[in-house]
């Protein structure tokens, strides 16, 4: 009986988190269009609803009613499965993100590694999507995309090891708490090199400009998504945005202090302790989301060989050097 | 309460499936896959024993097994690529000539 109550509570909490996340994702697309529109001297969506606020729902309805085509040569089961793998793995990694103190669905001891594990499963979605479509563009796009994602996964993992070293834990809640007494209340100051590496890899992991080669229309049509249409395409799109949120949340939690305020701020202004942590968390996440859009509006796309060279020849050595230096400093100077 | 022997028997079953495949399939990729199954079977046994003995040694060993498996697969598949250039096949029976 007790077990059933726990399960029911968890289901409700998970459903609430999913609902709020999906709403955020819907408005992230709106936010993105508005931001990029303004940056390019346009005004973005205005037609649907007040100032275009209903635009995301119009898009959703459109993709739901759009005819969906499965190519005759496709491997139908895998074609169906690919978006499910991507969406399920991305949504499961939401489970370990603490939105406020102990606010994660599951406060795991291996928190960050769990997100890595789920991210490595998302690669299968990409490969399976490309392979099952049985089309040249899809197939080649998926292989490229997978090569890109796995290359940057390493730089990401090694740069985060610096944070684990500083915090002495891989639990996201502990990492946030460990940052309170750091300069400015965040690891981004002392781990600035790891932070930069992680941010660049986050762009590559989520296939965002300037690393959005998988979707480079000029080269490979739409990459592994070429044969996907209608709501299946929408699911991939959704997964991309949720993973943007997860990357933004990871950056906020591991480098920018998460939901906690720095120790010196709360000592000077104790009343700020009353503000719920989720507010600080969301401010940081949205600041990073804005950065995503800003970069998209500003930077051109890299070539594929440049992209691989950045990952392998710059980011990985830099992150290894960073962790070695961090280790030496921590051993003998702290 | 599950006795340790259940885990060991599960590992044994997985190991034998892998071993039989390794012995009867001709495709090299399939043989490498079955090698992975056998290593996983050993890992299950190691971790189970380690858990029941409340000791970390088995888990450390399993960790090393994973690293070794990764290295082994990388080399095995590289050999397959090199062999494939000459024979255009992944069939074990084709590689019976000892010359490049």
């Amino acid at each position: 009986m007790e077990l059933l109550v726990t399960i029911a509570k968890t289901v409700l909490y998970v459903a609430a988190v999913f609902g709020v996340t999906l709403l955020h994702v819907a408005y992230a697309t709106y936010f993105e269009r508005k931001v990029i529109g303004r940056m390019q001297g346009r005004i973005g969506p205005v037609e649907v609803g007040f100032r275009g606020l209903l635009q995301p729902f119009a898009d959703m309805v459109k993709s739901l009613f759009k005819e969906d085509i499965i190519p005759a040569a496709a491997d139908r089961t895998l074609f169906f499965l690919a978006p499910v793998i991507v969406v399920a793995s991305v949504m499961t990694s939401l489970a370990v993100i603490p939105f406020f103190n102990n606010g994660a669905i599951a406060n795991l001891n291996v928190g960050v590694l769990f997100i890595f594990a789920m991210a490595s499963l998302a690669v299968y979605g990409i490969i399976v999507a490309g392979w099952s479509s049985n089309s040249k563009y899809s197939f080649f796009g998926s292989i490229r995309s997978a090569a890109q994602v796995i290359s940057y996964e390493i730089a990401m993992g090694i740069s985060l090891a610096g944070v684990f070293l500083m915090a002495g834990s891989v639990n996201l809640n502990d990492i946030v708490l460990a940052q309170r007494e750091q300069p400015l209340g965040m690891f981004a100051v002392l781990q600035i090199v790891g932070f930069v590496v992680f941010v660049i890899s986050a762009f590559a992991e989520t296939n965002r400009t300037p690393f959005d080669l998988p979707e480079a229309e000029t080269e490979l049509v739409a990459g592994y998504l070429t044969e996907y249409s209608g709501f299946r395409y929408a699911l991939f799109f959704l997964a991309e945005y949720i993973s943007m949120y997860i990357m933004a949340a990871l950056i906020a939690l591991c480098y920018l202090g998460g939901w906690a305020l720095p120790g010196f701020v709360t000592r000077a202004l104790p009343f700020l302790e009353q503000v719920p942590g989720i507010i600080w968390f969301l401010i940081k996440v949205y600041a990073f989301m804005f950065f995503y859009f800003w970069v998209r509006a500003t930077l051109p796309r890299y070539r594929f060989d440049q992209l691989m060279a950045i990952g392998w020849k710059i980011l990985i050595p830099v992150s290894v050097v960073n962790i070695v230096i961090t280790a030496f400093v921590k051993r003998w100077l702290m | 309460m599950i006795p340790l022997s259940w885990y060991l028997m599960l590992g044994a079953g997985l190991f034998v499936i892998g071993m039989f495949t390794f012995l009867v399939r001709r495709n090299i990729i399939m043989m490498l896959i079955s090698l992975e199954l056998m290593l996983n079977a050993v890992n299950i046994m190691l971790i189970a024993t380690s858990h029941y003995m409340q000791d970390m040694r088995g888990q450390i060993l399993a960790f090393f097994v994973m690293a070794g498996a990764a290295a082994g697969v990388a080399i095995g598949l590289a050999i397959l690529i090199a062999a494939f250039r000459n024979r255009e096949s992944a069939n074990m029976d084709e590689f019976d000539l000892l010359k490049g």
Partner: protein
Amino acid sequence: MPGSYIPSEYLPVFITLVLGTCFAVGALVLGELLRPRRPYAEKLSIYESGNIPVGEPRTRFDVRFYVIGMLFVVFDVEAVFLYPWAVAFGNIGLLGFWSMIFFLAIILVGYLYDWKKGALE
């Protein structure tokens, strides 16, 4: 007691996984019910910029993708060894500390060799 341990903190993760999968499958099924369906042969053929598809779709690709994959495996294992080292940093002695530096140095030699051989191009 060993033999009756249940990782209860993973129950919420399992529920999240189930709900996430249900969401994805449900969305696809809902789309299936709502949208029109008028297939014909040209529409179902593979997109190739409007041309009739030519050649083998699942063509072989460059061996360098395999080399990237192989390097990825090695570096992944290396990163995986870094995590327990980083987390247990306060508890490990001087020998453990220098062993990781030595480990990274060996990997570095292999990495430089690969760079020299042009595997990273």
